[in-house]
């Protein structure tokens, strides 16, 4: 154990070991973050996610423990570096733009007083570049009150990154946005984190955030980390009910080919028309609609993920002949378990796909563990995300 910890300290950008007791709540967390890595901290409400971020940012003090950034102790016995000297940024649910400052002045604030320490004039120029980067060119003079929620969060992202944080903490940054705006902000965060090479920890209870933004997932429950690994690995083998509920979606992590998601085992998942653009960013989708097997792309494969609900998976005992669902494959039944909305059928493949159906349907179809079944999903029920 000590060997791994020692190794982590050498390679990790950020290493934290935190203990805190408040009332009946106890937090005991060890986590590390590699340079350029994005870690998703998943957990239900009240699991202590935001507390962990506050402790890392220096906005709260642990009872015992340490926070080390780049070999420098930020939190240690008898030592607590102030938040303004940590270079750890925070982007929360609410944009919290300074209401008396324009969008430009908000970003310029971070450039003047953050790592860059620019003078007022250069900060204004650079602030406009940042606003351009987040798609808000020309809105520099607007006061926060005149911007929409999504625009405010864009400014907040630009401001957080402009401060030049060594680690950016994201506390459910999409939670306060409406369903139409959230995907754009999520995509923007992904792009900007990658472009700036910023290491980040994102706290969320939305699996899509983890899939799109994070390289690695840690699951926090009742103040302790109960699981850790790649998103796909953590969801494939849920360790507790919360993860199982999160895993209530089928997640196929694969590569994009001709507007479809190809799983590690070669299965092709066609996705709803609205999401095909996300799968072919450089050139418009040139997929030939009739083609059964997509042709291999010439360039490096784009990492993507397909997500669909178990209830959208239809189970057949014979190959379905009506051609309407485009995604059809055969698999073996690995397990039959009680689920939230009926019976869950876990079926073979990489990744395994879960189908949810009524107990009566299971009996009608005569399904048992080991049965061979045909599964189908309508492309319109499959959403896709770039990773």
């Amino acid at each position: 154990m000590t060997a791994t910890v020692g190794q982590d300290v050498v390679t990790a950008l950020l290493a934290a070991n935190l203990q805190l007791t408040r009332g009946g709540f106890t937090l005991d967390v060890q986590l590390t973050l590699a340079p350029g890595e994005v870690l998703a901290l998943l957990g239900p409400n009240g699991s202590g996610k935001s507390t962990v971020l506050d402790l890392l940012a220096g906005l709260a003090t642990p009872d015992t423990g340490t926070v080390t950034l780049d070999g420098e102790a930020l939190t240690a016995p008898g030592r607590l570096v102030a938040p303004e000297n940590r270079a750890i940024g925070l982007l929360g649910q609410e944009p919290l733009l300074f209401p008396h400052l324009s969008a430009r002045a908000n970003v310029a604030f971070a450039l003047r007083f953050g790592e860059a320490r620019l003078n007022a004039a250069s900060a204004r120029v650079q602030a406009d570049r940042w606003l351009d980067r987040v798609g808000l060119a020309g809105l520099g003079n607007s006061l926060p009150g005149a911007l929409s929620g999504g625009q405010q969060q864009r400014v907040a992202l630009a401001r957080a990154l402009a401060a030049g944080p060594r680690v950016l903490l994201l506390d459910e940054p999409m939670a306060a946005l409406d369903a139409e705006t959230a995907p754009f902000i999520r995509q923007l965060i992904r792009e900007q984190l990658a472009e700036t090479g910023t290491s980040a920890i994102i706290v969320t209870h939305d699996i899509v955030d983890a899939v799109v933004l994070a390289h690695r997932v840690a699951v926090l429950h009742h103040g302790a980390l109960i699981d850790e690994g790649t998103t796909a690995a953590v969801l494939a083998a849920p360790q507790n009910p919360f993860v199982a509920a999160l895993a209530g979606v089928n997640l196929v992590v694969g590569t994009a080919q001709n507007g479809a998601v190809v799983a590690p085992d070669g299965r092709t998942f066609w996705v709803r028309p609205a999401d095909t653009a996300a799968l072919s960013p450089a050139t418009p989708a040139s997929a030939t609609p009739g083609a059964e097997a997509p042709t291999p792309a010439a360039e490096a494969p784009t990492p993507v993920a397909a997500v669909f609900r178990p209830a959208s998976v239809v189970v057949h005992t014979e190959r379905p002949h009506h051609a309407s669902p485009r995604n059809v494959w055969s698999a073996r039944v690995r397990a039959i378990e009680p689920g939230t909305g009926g019976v869950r059928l876990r079926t073979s493949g990489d990744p395994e796909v879960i189908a949810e159906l009524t107990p009566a349907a299971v009996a009608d179809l005569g399904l048992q563990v080991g049965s061979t079944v045909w599964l189908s999903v309508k492309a319109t029920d499959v959403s896709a995300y770039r990773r």
Partner: protein
Amino acid sequence: MIPRLLYLPASIGLALLVLPLAGLLLKVDWPALPALLLSPEALQPLGLSLATASVSTLLCLLLGVPLAVVIARSKPRAAGLLRALVTVPLVLPPLVGGIALLSLLGRGGVLGNTLELAGLRIPFTTAAVVIAQTFVALPFLVIAVEGALRTAGIRYERVAATLGAGRGTVFARITLPLVGPGLLAGTVLSFARALGEFGATALFAGNQVGVTRTMPLAIYTAFNGSGVTTDQAVALSLLLIAVAVIILVLVGTRRASVLS
């Protein structure tokens, strides 16, 4: 939507506030007014009042804003205690405040004796006027600013800190602008209270022409008619009302232009 019954007490309340001022205007001897207002008996107290009230307001800002910050950021129990201590002079009759100031700083007072040994005598000087005014006006500023600080919360300050801004920068560029409206309201209230201060000044500073005779004391003196006419008291009152109205209008327009 308002129960009709409320209009009666509302009208009486408004009348109670407005009619006396109307009555005052009716009593004004308009032809003689210019001469009365331009007389040294009017101009000297006005100058003294404006000067002392300005200094007092400045002192209120310098002392009151930090005090408000400390209260707003204290733990609940300490904040409650501090708030109560600040509110006492607010609910105290100013005359009692004057006696209290004399007991501390006057001859025989705890601090007064010490100061006297150092060759300093506070009571019945212009400094005493400023101290008395600050004593009664400070709570208004502290309460207004503290309320604004608590409403603003610490979320913006925390964000500013995570962006790398030090405490001084955050205070000057985030905290103060956020409480701007409260600060303005507190300043106006303090100035108005200092301008109208009578009881504590009368006891602690006296009524010496050119040194401690501010407008309220001049009005009182004129009204008591030691050789002066009531007309003068009315004229001085009118002047004080005019100053107050001018300040309110100036602040009001500035506020409107900030908001628009």
